[in-house]
């Protein structure tokens, strides 16, 4: 009797699990399917449940393989390379100033420490849009609005905060004893840093660089205020085609989605959960 009851309970739980699985699959992949369908829909008129004809015309057009005036899409290759260039420069500069700062926060007791911590925590706690708006005001006066350097500065701002926290957490995880051992055999602080701390921190620093890279690639709000209408990054092409050109917008969205998922899957295990959610 008892075993029948346990069996019943098991079946009930399994049924609930399968229902949850199906529901979750629909929930997560439903919106994604919509994106994929639109990206290959040559013709999709309401109320057909699926596109009337499918093809890769919008993909070819967006990737610059084909140039036809009949298809409402332009090559996004220039925007892609602009985004890539901005992201690479952003990573180099942001990490060059984030690594020393992260190291200092991890290894030294700093006077006014709370104030400095506040400075790096506030962007997570308060909305950032008013910052961009006021930067636009300032940048307009000094000629940085609508320029690539202006956009890079904003991307550094967005990435730097995460860069500093991730590197600081990484340096903190390196045992002090290792550094002390190096010093006790006569290495000076620079040598200790480059021979001991830096190599040990390398995986964390790499993860943090990749993170800053992706944040820059996907950055929207700052670029919207500082860059438009002259600096057209990939997310800006998505924005300007969104709403009236479903096919083209869907193609760009998928192109943006691929590196994000790929890189984040690679580095997520190294990162603290809190930072992973900070993007976008």
């Amino acid at each position: 009797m008892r075993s029948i009851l346990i069996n019943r309970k098991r079946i009930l739980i399994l049924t609930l699990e399968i229902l949850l699985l199906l529901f979750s699959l629909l929930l997560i992949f439903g919106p994604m399917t919509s994106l994929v369908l639109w990206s290959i829909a040559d013709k999709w008129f309401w109320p057909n449940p699926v596109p009337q004809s499918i093809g890769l015309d919008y993909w070819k057009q967006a990737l610059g393989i084909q140039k036809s005036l009949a298809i409402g899409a332009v090559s996004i290759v220039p925007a892609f390379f602009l985004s890539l260039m901005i992201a690479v420069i952003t990573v180099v500069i942001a990490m060059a100033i984030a690594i020393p700062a992260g190291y200092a926060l991890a290894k030294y007791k700093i006077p006014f420490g709370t104030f400095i911590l506040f400075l790096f925590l506030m962007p997570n706690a308060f909305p950032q849009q008013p910052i961009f708006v006021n930067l636009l005001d300032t940048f307009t006066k000094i000629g940085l609005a609508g320029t690539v350097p202006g956009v890079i500065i904003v991307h550094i701002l967005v990435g730097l905060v995460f860069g500093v926290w991730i590197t600081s957490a990484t340096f903190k995880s390196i045992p002090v004893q290792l550094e002390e051992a190096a010093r006790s055999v006569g290495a000076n602080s620079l040598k200790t840093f480059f021979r001991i701390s830096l190599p040990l921190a390398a995986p964390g620093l790499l993860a943090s660089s990749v993170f800053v890279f992706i944040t820059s690639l996907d950055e929207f709000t700052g670029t919207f205020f500082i860059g438009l209408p002259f600096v057209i990054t990939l997310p800006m092409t998505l924005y300007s085609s969104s709403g009236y050109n479903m096919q083209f917008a869907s193609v760009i969205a998928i192109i943006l989605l691929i590196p994000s998922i790929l890189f984040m899957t690679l580095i997520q295990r190294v990162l603290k959960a809190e930072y992973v959610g900070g993007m976008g």
Partner: protein
Amino acid sequence: MGKIVMSDNVQKRRGFIFPPYILLLFPAVSFMLLVYAYPFVSSVLKSFINKEGALSLDNYFKAWDLYLKDILFTFSITVFNTIASGIVAILLAVYFRLHESPISRFLLNLYRLPIFIPFVVVAQMMNSFLAPHGLLNVALAQLRLIDLNNPLQLFNFIGLSFGFIWKLAPFTILIIYGGFQMIDNSYIEAGRSAGAKWFKLITRILIPMNKPSIMVALVLIYSQIVGTFTLPYMLIGGKIPTTITVDIAHRVNYFRDFGVANALGVFSYILVFVTAIYYLKTKVKEVK
């Protein structure tokens, strides 16, 4: 200072030398002061300066008159989605923690996916999925649940919430589940052997023991929702009501009206004030 013994000695010998951390922190801190702190302070100051350049509350009166509805809309969107994401996340995280099976392991990974998708892509996804003749409406019509001549209108509170929960509940799951993993099995076993059913297990053991990470998760998504511009801008745009972030963009792009935009910005600071203080306090404590 005890960690860096050598430099202490050097300091004693030569008197005062420049502490190395000043040099290390200088670039990052000066960048943050210039590009973050300065615009932050000026966003508050400029909200009190009217078009004639005089000190006044004009911007606030105007923002209040024009956008009170939107401020309330933003607040209700934020509260609703924080609570909804929190409940969904706690339930799923409990399930992942207490029930080990191939399906639960698969779902744990599946729910990571939206975290990695940037808001601008989520916005486009929802834009096509939730449209009056989008995939959702078409699918529901195929199941004869709705009539396509009268489709669900989702570019409003409901659609925006769907987008926010889709993107942010998974992030909340990740943090809360991380906290649940820290709770030793022995507590759960003890609860079970004392006869606690799953509901008691959740409310008496799992949630109280995991309060810090639940709070941090909720505080983080709360401030993120208040500050998100992309999703409401691409989904609702200038319809009424819309969010504060969309209004700020309109004030700046159409009217170059930085005064009212900044007053709206201060309203968004006020909305996150309590959560921001909580976040700053716990983080500073955690770091020290």
